[in-house]
């Protein structure tokens, strides 16, 4: 089994859930251009960015690629799948990012960019300090 680390990012009050997810998924596609996005509540998968209807999403899994998606489907939270999926949950004013290892380079980069673009004034980190 592998564990997850929750990172909470404050998002601006006027930024709606779908908009926040749109932005962070775009960040992930910058690192993983063939990422697969799955709606956590319905299981529906999106195999390209253009297909995704963010307005209806609140919780998603973003897999590195189709291979990672298949591997998660087969093995679940297995060490072989370490750092190949990011879990995003958005609730009013907060985005929770769940990653396996926040110090792994790609995970760290995704979290930093999400913080930078959604919380430019650093409210989340000041609140956590």
């Amino acid at each position, binding site marked *: 089994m592998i564990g997850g680390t929750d990172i909470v990012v404050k998002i601006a009050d006027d930024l709606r859930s779908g908009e926040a997810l749109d932005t962070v998924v*775009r960040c992930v596609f910058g690192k993983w251009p063939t990422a697969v996005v799955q709606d956590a509540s319905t299981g529906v998968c999106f195999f390209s960015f253009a297909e995704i*209807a963010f307005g209806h999403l609140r919780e998603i899994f973003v897999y590195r690629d189709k291979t990672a998606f298949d591997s998660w489907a087969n093995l679940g939270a297995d060490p072989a799948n370490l750092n190949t999926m990011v879990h995003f949950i958005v609730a009013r004013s907060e985005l929770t990012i769940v990653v396996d290892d926040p110090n792994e380079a790609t995970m760290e980069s995704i979290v930093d*960019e999400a913080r930078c673009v959604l919380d430019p004034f650093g409210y989340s980190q000041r609140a956590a300090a």
Partner: protein
Amino acid sequence: MTKEQRQKLLVGILKESRLDFLSEPGSWAALLQRLDDFGEAYARHMVNVPPGLLPSTASLDNVLAEHDRNPHRVRMLLQAVAFRCSPEMLVMVWMTLLGSQIRSLSYKYSRKQKSSLAVSLQLPDGTTTIAFESSDHWDTAVLRFAAVSQVDHLPMIEDFHPMWIPPQDVWKHDLFVETAQGSFSAADTAPAASAKPCWEVHEVFAKQPPRQIGIIDVDEHGHPVYGSSAAAEDGRILLEIVWGALARKYGEEALNRRVK
């Protein structure tokens, strides 16, 4: 979709985007013309784009359909229209919102002489690029919307975010209530496709601008879900008081119903 249905939907989206003025008689025809021009400019660019990378058209019907899936993107486009961006730059914004990457962006300005913007986009296949150039000064407005960030300490503009537009004429809001704590208005700001309302609550003062207290979502059981802003605890208590007062005045059923 009939012309009347299309018009009703667009007016609703403008209201939700707080761009109601674009649906007033003096602005309405110009808005439709600008959206038509945008659609034509988009089609011109798509002639040289490999099929399947992006939607082939951006007609008003396409834009309205996208609102159902991604309302924030349509809000962004309409804000760019409101800021008088040219059809060319509207295409650039729209292609970015649909998943293209901004590869480069440059802006040059000389007082009373020159204002020029050049943007290069890379489409979702990672190879096709499209260049956009404009010397229309109003196109500078796209810089207001740029989502500026850093990736690994390197510069990045991921996409464009709509601006927060303050509410106008709060006394015309959907609901209004007076309590011992003050006077409050509530407006349904949920996207048109949403089944449940999302109440944005403002404290209303006689001689100063209104203050946003927070937002009350309504869950599937009709229960309020409070989300307040910076002064979290105080805002939350105030929202609970306002919800109770509104429920007594209008009835809980009215609070669970969409206004639009």
